[in-house]
């Protein structure tokens, strides 16, 4: 069997640097943290180069290392700033509901064909922006669940929370993201249209 053609580590930065950086940025939302973790990934890969079997592609191998680093970073962040009272208060937006729990004004109609929206690059960027506006615990929980596709058991371990607390966090994160998108995307675009 032919030996897989591995690249010289000196070429890694040019070949995979931006790719790994984008992967990290989507999940970490912070340039300098993303750059640091990309650097650590390359260094770990260099140290471990002998164990790279070529069973997966080089980029898959590197992303695997980066993924571990990102999850370690989340774990570390959760330890540094554990959940506060604020993260768990059930309703981030109490004015949405009246005393008996009915909607006061209700979610707006997002119009058009919402299913097409997620293909729009600008809408993706707006979601990323709204995500950066959440507290790290909320944003990291959402990222692990919806971007990484992790199951709740894994996320509880990384963030060191109970399952019940995680549901509250995810509920809050989704509600805040929905409100942020409505305020920054739909209201703007409906004004643009008029």
């Amino acid at each position, binding site marked *: 069997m032919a030996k897989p053609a591995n690249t010289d*580590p*000196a070429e*890694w*930065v040019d070949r995979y*640097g*931006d*790719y790994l*950086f*984008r*992967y990290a*940025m*989507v999940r970490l939302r912070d*340039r300098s943290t993303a*750059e640091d973790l*990309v*650097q650590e990934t*390359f*260094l770990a890969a*260099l*140290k471990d180069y002998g164990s790279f079997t070529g069973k997966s592609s080089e*980029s898959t191998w590197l*992303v695997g290392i980066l993924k571990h680093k990102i999850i370690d970073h989340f774990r570390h962040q959760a330890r540094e700033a554990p959940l506060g009272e604020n993260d768990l208060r*059930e*309703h981030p937006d109490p004015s*949405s*509901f009246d005393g*008996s*729990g009915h*909607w006061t004004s*209700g*979610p707006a*109609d*997002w119009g058009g064909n*919402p*299913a097409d*929206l*997620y*293909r729009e*690059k600008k*809408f*993706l960027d707006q*979601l*990323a922006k709204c995500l950066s506006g959440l507290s790290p615990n909320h944003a990291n929980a*959402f990222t692990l*669940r*919806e*971007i*990484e*596709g992790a199951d*709740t058991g894994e996320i509880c371990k990384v963030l060191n929370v109970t*399952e019940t607390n*995680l*549901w509250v966090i*995810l*509920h809050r994160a*989704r*509600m805040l*993201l*929905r409100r942020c*998108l409505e305020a920054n995307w739909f209201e703007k675009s409906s004004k643009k249209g008029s």
Partner: protein
Amino acid sequence: MLSCKDVTQLLSEAMDASLPIGKRIGVRLHLLICKFCLRYKRQLLLIRETARRLAAIETTPGLPAGDALSADARERIRKSLATP
């Protein structure tokens, strides 16, 4: 009887775990008569789709669009790789 506030919480929970049958039926009945909660549910699903799409598009190798490492970071990483 579930309120809209209860239902929004259960809708989120149902995206992460399966609800017990009683709650599942309660939510389903509520959605038949409440257009706001139905809309809320659709918007949460759209947000999920968008997050997945975000992960996929930013990491398609070879796509020139999007963020890149800054020149400084590139240089720093290159140096650290040369002198480990």
